């Protein structure tokens, strides 16, 4: 399946990446699976997605958690805790 993956704020800068289209294996079902996949890239990816428990995720503009499932054509995003207002 194919997903559109976005990164925001400090995470975007750390990864030096704001967006990518990802082809994923069928065994990646949830946000947790996706994080594990990203950790395997090593370097800043490993440190960002392994260590950072405060990291938030959304699927199709809805806040998500580790168990939220991912489907083909989804827009998934990772970002740090929000600080607007």
């Amino acid at each position: 399946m194919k997903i559109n993956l976005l990164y925001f704020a400090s995470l975007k800068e750390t990864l030096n990446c704001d967006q990518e289209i990802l082809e994923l294996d069928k065994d990646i079902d949830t946000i947790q699976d996706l994080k594990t996949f990203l950790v395997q890239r090593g370097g800043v990816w490993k440190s960002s997605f392994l260590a950072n428990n405060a990291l938030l995720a959304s699927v199709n503009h809805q806040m998500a958690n580790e168990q939220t499932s991912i489907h083909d054509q989804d827009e998934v995003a990772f970002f740090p805790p929000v600080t607007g207002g």
Partner: protein
Amino acid sequence: MLISVQQQDFEVNKIIDQLTQGRSDIGAIVTFTGLVRDLSKEKDLVAMDLEHYPGMTEKSLKSLAESALKKWQIKDLAIIHRVGRLHPTENIVMVVTISAHRKQAFDACEYLMDYLKTQAPFWKKEITRDGEHWVAAKQSDLKATSRWEK
């Protein structure tokens, strides 16, 4: 309901006028305006960059507004949030609630601000003379939000 994520500034008067126009059932209007402040004695804050998640931010504000209209006896509300580069003393955000009685308008306005601070995808980066840094999320904001869940 008036929701806007925008770069340009807003005027409190005009938002109030838009919300109350043609109504005679409004007894109370509460507004909150958040500004870029420079609390440091050295006045070293040069600017504030407001990043957001286009698409999700608007949806998140709309769903927050809907929850407030359900939870409180208010007649209408506005949420305006600016994005992009802002400078000290400039407006960042405005929330307006209108109702028959004051208590509901006050509570709804506080509720909206508390949730906006912890739920809506905006991120602040401070540009100071010594460099740039992302603003950290505040524990006090999470606490402020949790009190409405009782």
